[in-house]
């Protein structure tokens, strides 16, 4: 549908990812387990975040995203986000990346759904960008990079009509359709129901530009109001609040898109799939993916010049728990036939091998990958390889 949705999708998903990674890496320093505490220093954490932000807001990356194009498939989107997460010295194994992607997806779905009017999605994006800018505030060059990117975003999106912005929102809702993964913190805060669906309020301020429901007005042929009458509207709405700022900085007014993880514990980010609906949604369509070529160009750009750490030589790394084990089920119980959470590890090492050739990477990972389904060609192999990272 809309061909302009990808940049905002990646920035918002990336933003959620940074929130979670930041919180988890901080938590490592606060853990009671003396054996694990202190592995990720403040400096390490900042380095990881800076590296990710540098790639995410790089000119080349954004330029690629801003080309008019359909949204990536979930598979390709995950690849891109995995690659972003691995820009630095930190590595997440597939299970961690799964959980992370689930969290990002549901957080963004919630924000898009609750967006009072389509234009507010820009404010949500700016909330993410503002928070990211805060995270890298020590690095003036990164702040400049972010500001440049934000100027481009403002230029690209603020002139769009409400109808075009709604089309963008509908495109994103299509991407997130049928995802009902339950997230502990959402359940706890009562923004998500036990069946995975989000709570939609019928009270509060109406969106900017709307009127509180409940009034009918009649006009004469000269346009003058001649009569008015009220009707019971149900719900409990109040007038719109002031509009958020669409500038580089300013009060965005909405809280959607702000960092909700800063005060949370690891337990709060536990997720669980709700049976069939989610697995159905995660099945990619069986037809050939016409986007594969564009996605690969982007991925190749990202991979080129980046140092790669070989998973095959993992023994030098120290395992760090990103999320807790499920031995202590703190209270949110989920369906009996749900898979258990499992331990999520970050395999991290500060030593890394410089290896920039794509062919060498492919050779190292090929033994580990399953046979790809569907037509086997170069493109699919690269994507399949990326999935194993």
């Amino acid at each position, binding site marked *: *549908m809309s061909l302009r949705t990808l940049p905002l999708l990646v920035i918002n998903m990336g933003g959620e990812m940074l929130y979670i990674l930041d919180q988890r890496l901080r938590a490592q320093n606060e853990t009671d387990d003396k054996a694990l505490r202190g592995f990720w220093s403040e400096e390490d954490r900042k380095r990881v975040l800076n590296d990710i932000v540098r790639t995410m807001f790089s000119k080349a990356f954004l330029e690629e995203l801003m080309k008019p194009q359909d949204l990536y498939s979930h598979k390709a989107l995950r690849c891109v986000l995995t690659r972003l997460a691995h820009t630095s010295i930190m590595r997440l194994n597939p299970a961690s990346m799964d959980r992370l992607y689930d969290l990002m997806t549901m957080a963004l779905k919630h924000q898009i759904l609750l967006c009072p009017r389509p234009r507010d999605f820009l404010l949500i994006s700016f909330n993410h960008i503002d928070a990211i800018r805060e995270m890298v505030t020590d690095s003036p060059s990164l702040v400049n990079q972010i500001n440049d990117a934000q100027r481009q975003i403002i230029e690209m999106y603020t002139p769009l009509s409400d*109808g075009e912005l709604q089309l963008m929102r509908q495109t994103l809702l*299509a991407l997130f*359709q049928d995802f009902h993964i339950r997230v502990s913190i959402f359940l706890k805060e009562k923004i998500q129901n036990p069946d995975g669906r989000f709570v939609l309020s*019928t009270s509060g301020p109406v969106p900017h530009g*709307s009127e*509180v429901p409940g009034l009918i007005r009649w*006009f004469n042929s000269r346009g003058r109001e001649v009569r008015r009458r009220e*009707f*019971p509207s149900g719900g409990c709405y109040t007038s719109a609040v002031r509009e958020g700022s669409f500038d580089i900085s300013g009060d965005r007014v909405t809280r959607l898109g702000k960092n909700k993880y800063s005060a949370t514990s690891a337990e709060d980010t536990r997720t669980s799939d709700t049976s069939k609906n989610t697995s159905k949604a995660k099945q990619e369509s069986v037809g050939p993916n016409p986007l594969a070529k564009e996605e690969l160009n982007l991925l190749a750009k990202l991979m080129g010049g980046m140092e790669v750490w070989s998973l095959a030589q993992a023994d030098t790394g120290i395992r760090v728990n990103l999320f807790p084990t499920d031995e202590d089920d703190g209270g949110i119980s989920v369906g009996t036939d749900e898979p258990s959470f499992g331990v999520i590890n970050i395999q991290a090492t500060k030593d890394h091998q410089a290896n920039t050739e794509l062919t060498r990477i492919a050779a190292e990972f090929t033994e580990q990958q399953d046979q790809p389904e569907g037509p086997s060609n170069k493109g699919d192999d690269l994507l399949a390889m990326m999935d194993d990272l």
Partner: protein
Amino acid sequence: KFLYNKPLSHHPNFNEMAKMYHKEKSIQIKSSASALYNNLSVLRIAPRCLTYFTVVHANVVNMVSASWDGLNYSHRQLQSKEGNVATSSSLIMQAAWCVLPSRDLLVLTSQKGIQMYESDGSIMVYWHALETPETPTAQAVFARGIAAVREKYICVGVSSGSVLVFDVPSKGSNITLSEVLEEHTEAITDMASECSGSMECIADLVSADDSGLLCVWKSGGDFQLLNKIPGFDTSCSSLKLWKGTVIAGYGTGQIRLYEGVTGILHAEVNAHARWIYSLDIAPFTGLLLSAAEDSLVRVWHLTITPETNSVEIEHLYNECVTDTQICGAKFCDGDGYAFAVTGYDLSEIIRYTQA
């Protein structure tokens, strides 16, 4: 005939209103409804005691046929088409039945083109491919907005603002594109044809776009533009035309009633707290249905007297579909005795009948 209890007006708690409708058993559909305007179409087939429903999910249309005794349901799925490929991943924007005197056709509009089927979805009788620019621009390409007009036209809107007029013979597949109307410059959102059944109405068709502009037309060998009613910079997402009155639902949650030919605004309703996704009218009784992202479906009563130029609208009833952004709401019959509702991410068609 129908009977309804007048609600207690001015009462803040809608639960205490006399219940005009009650919820029936929902119809399960094979996949959930997508967040698209007017995402429910209903066709009543009295001779066979059946009602058909269609709900769009991504590149598929879920079609259910429900027997009136509630005992038999049968499902069919139609897919979007593209070029020479029978099935495609291109997204469907809307599906709607077009009721013409001699035949009913099911029309699907997608990112690639327009498909027309026999009313039971069994055979595709016509395919029209949309022109796509050689180099992709930022402007999305799709068809949206479907209306059957008078005896022989089916009109479909396009994202460029064009309205395609198709000439439909009484049977067979010799459907032709007879005219392209170029008045809108923004993407068409919805279209509606006069549904009162009266032959006295001058205006046959109204089209709306993302800027809220409404164009009022008279059909014929050449369609004639009767009026252009400017928008107020807010998208009009759903439209009806009844007894010459345009009923328009907007992204601001407002409903406006205009006299089609003159463009005079009769009334404005602050109807919903979020974007309106669907309007429908029961032509025999003047009941109006409105539904929005705010989870509410509202029933109103319209009284229009063209002779005295008076338009009366009265609010009758509210129904809240909890935690659901409604994307389709339609009456199941011409009296408004029953209506059906779809919501984003819901895999069911919720039904209500007068109590």
